[in-house]
């Protein structure tokens, strides 16, 4: 069986949950099938510069084929398109313009897909908010398997994604909450799907002392791994400042990740330390050294950071506004969720002061990862799904993209309204 893994960015140095998941699955599937990764030359999701050279290479036993990506739109253009799509009645063409402005297109990659579609049995598209995924899934609709990693942000209410979800051969979800959200968006459309997720590879014996020594960090701390420019990072710093005010001698906060915008401006707190971007070894050392891992994202459907912390036996403190994260914490019994500042303080204090609770949650999380996200489990789910799809030829041809006039008809309601109605 020959599989194509299509993802916007790929490589060991590339950060991002979707990209990490694609790499994990590609590397593991490569042991059982002929896997080729189709990706762009970009490494950063903010600049989209062609940092890697185009062409083929082999990374960790996986064949990787890179294509050049077009120049990204300016921030003002992105904002203009986003405003039109989210707040005004618009057309499908407006949504496509917004999508291409958010995540640039690689025409050469799409050409390759169309030309060599017959060479692949299935194409696994990672990440739904990508122009490559959208056009690629239409190019090889009968072979397209989408791993959307849907977030409950306003973009999920756009028409193009609802059409895309209904058009692909199958969808593999990371969590039941994600599936429920997509099913609500695609109300009335039948779609083959399964909840599979993806595991994590963590070292057997991380060295917490090494991280503390390297970064000169003493005392207990909680850790946040993720972008610092976004809303999540800023919110977390604000919440932690409140916690530090109430608990004068509690945990510190270590921020790991790139970005120096809004968080940089407010993170001059004596108990907030910035560790910058870490490689995988340092990251796992840092998680092992932490008392708890904080996942403050409101929209996330599946947190690989949470999985990594559970795999290392550490509890998670997640944002309770994310239904998917709350579901994960409850199912695993491995983390607590907060819904406001008071709860953040209360939960963090509970994790800090009750070592038994901390250890019990970590143990539960580790067991949850072993039971559901070990490659043996995930791999067998992938195998079953692919075999089932190969034997089932009922949906060979997908629908075509909307025509010229259909794309330009201004009858799509604002995405924010749609999201609000399905939330």
């Amino acid at each position, binding site marked *: 069986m020959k599989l194509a893994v299509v993802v916007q960015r790929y490589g060991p140095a590339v950060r991002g949950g979707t990209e990490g998941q694609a790499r994990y699955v590609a590397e593991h599937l490569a042991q059982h099938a002929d896997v080729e990764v189709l990706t762009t030359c970009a490494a950063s999701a903010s600049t989209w510069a062609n940092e890697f050279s185009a062409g083929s290479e082999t990374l960790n036993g996986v064949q990787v084929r890179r294509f050049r990506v077009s120049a990204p739109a300016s921030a003002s253009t992105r904002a203009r398109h986003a405003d039109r799509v989210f707040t005004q009645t618009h057309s499908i063409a407006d949504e496509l313009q917004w999508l291409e402005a958010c995540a640039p297109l690689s025409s050469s990659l799409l050409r390759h897909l169309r030309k060599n579609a017959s060479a692949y049995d299935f194409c696994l598209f990672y990440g739904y908010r990508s122009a490559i995924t959208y056009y690629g899934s239409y190019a090889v609709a009968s072979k397209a398997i989408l791993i959307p990693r849907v977030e409950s942000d306003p973009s999920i209410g756009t028409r193009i994604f609802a059409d895309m979800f209904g058009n692909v051969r199958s969808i593999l979800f990371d969590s039941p909450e994600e599936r429920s959200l997509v099913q609500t968006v695609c109300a009335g459309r039948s779609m083959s799907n399964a909840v599979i997720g993806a595991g994590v590879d963590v070292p057997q014996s991380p060295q917490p002392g090494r991280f503390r020594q390297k970064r000169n960090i003493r005392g207990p701390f909680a850790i946040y791994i993720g972008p610092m420019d976004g809303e999540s990072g800023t919110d977390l710093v604000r919440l932690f400042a409140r916690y530090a005010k109430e608990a004068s001698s509690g945990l510190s906060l270590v921020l790991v990740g790139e970005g120096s915008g809004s968080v940089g401006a407010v993170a001059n707190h004596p108990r907030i330390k910035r560790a910058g971007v870490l490689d995988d070894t340092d990251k796992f050392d840092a998680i092992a050294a932490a008392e708890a891992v904080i996942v403050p994202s409101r929209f996330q459907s599946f947190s690989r950071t949470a999985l990594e912390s559970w795999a290392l036996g550490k509890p998670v403190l997640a944002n309770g506004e994310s239904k998917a994260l709350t579901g994960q*914490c*409850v199912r*695993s*019994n*491995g*983390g*607590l*969720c907060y*819904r*406001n500042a*008071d*709860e953040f303080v*209360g*939960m963090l*204090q*509970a994790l800090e*002061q*009750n070592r*038994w*609770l901390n250890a*019990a*949650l970590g143990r*539960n999380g580790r067991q949850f990862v072993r039971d559901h996200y070990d490659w043996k489990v995930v791999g067998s789910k992938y195998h079953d799904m692919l075999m089932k799809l190969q034997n089932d030829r009922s949906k060979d041809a997908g629908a075509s993209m909307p025509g010229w006039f259909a794309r330009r008809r201004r009858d799509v309601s604002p995405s924010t309204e749609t999201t609000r109605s399905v939330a």
Partner: protein
Amino acid sequence: MADFNVRADSVNVEQIMEQIRARIREKRGVDYTEAEIQQLATGRLEKFIDPHNVRSDLLQEFHRVRAASDAPDPSEEVIDESVLFETHRPWLRSLRKVLRPILKLFLNTKALAALSLRAKAEVSRRSRDQLTFELLHNLVVEMTRLGVEVKNLSMRVESLQGRLEFNERRARALESVVVYKPSEAETTDSVSRAPMRDARPVAEFRPRADVQTGAGQTEASGGGAPVPGGSEGPGQRSRRRRRRRGRRGGGMQGPGGGMPGGMPMTGSSPAPAAPADEATTVAPEPEQPAHEASAPESNGGGSDTDLDPQ
């Protein structure tokens, strides 16, 4: 959440989170989210806007203002319609001036000018109303927030009061444990006289400095020489015991000195405070060492089982 504790073999995250949330609610009082505060504020504002629910004359005032703004402006009579023909271009102004009589044949320019002025006034009024509305809204939000805060603070005051009362009770209980170290001779004497009742070791009881000095001073002022340690006579001890009992009985009856929160007195009920002249006629009790006498008192007056922290 310092007192949050889990010791079960298996944890239930939902249960733990609910416990923490309950504790937060307990600590903070009513746990309103920002959205709930907004909802509360909206509710009040709706009540304010709805004329059926308004209980003050503020609505009438608003109606009066509206009526005043709706009424035709008296200055309308003196409106100058020339504003309709104003322009910054001189050639156009002169042309309009020439053509004005012809235009006036077709239009009521005075009415048009009045409408124009009223439209301007309406725009300004609407903007003012909008500002007023926003101001009111913000005030109501702040009031709601303050109301919640006041409620929380009152709950905290109640909590602090409870703690204070507890501390007072504890202090009183400790004070009631009047201890006294007898001399060796007296100990042997008391042991020989009441061997069955003195079950507790002597080493458990230690004299309290303040009680000793207080008693000594009282005795000294009464004419007797200050007697150290256990060399005081049986009459003095019984007098002191009566004084203590009387003080305790009086304290419990008084409004400020009673056991707070209606704490029941366990053990033997205390004797009512005897008048001073009656005290002299009280039949002498069988003589006991001080620690023997104090032991039941300490149990009855302020036993540890009564000291419920909250």
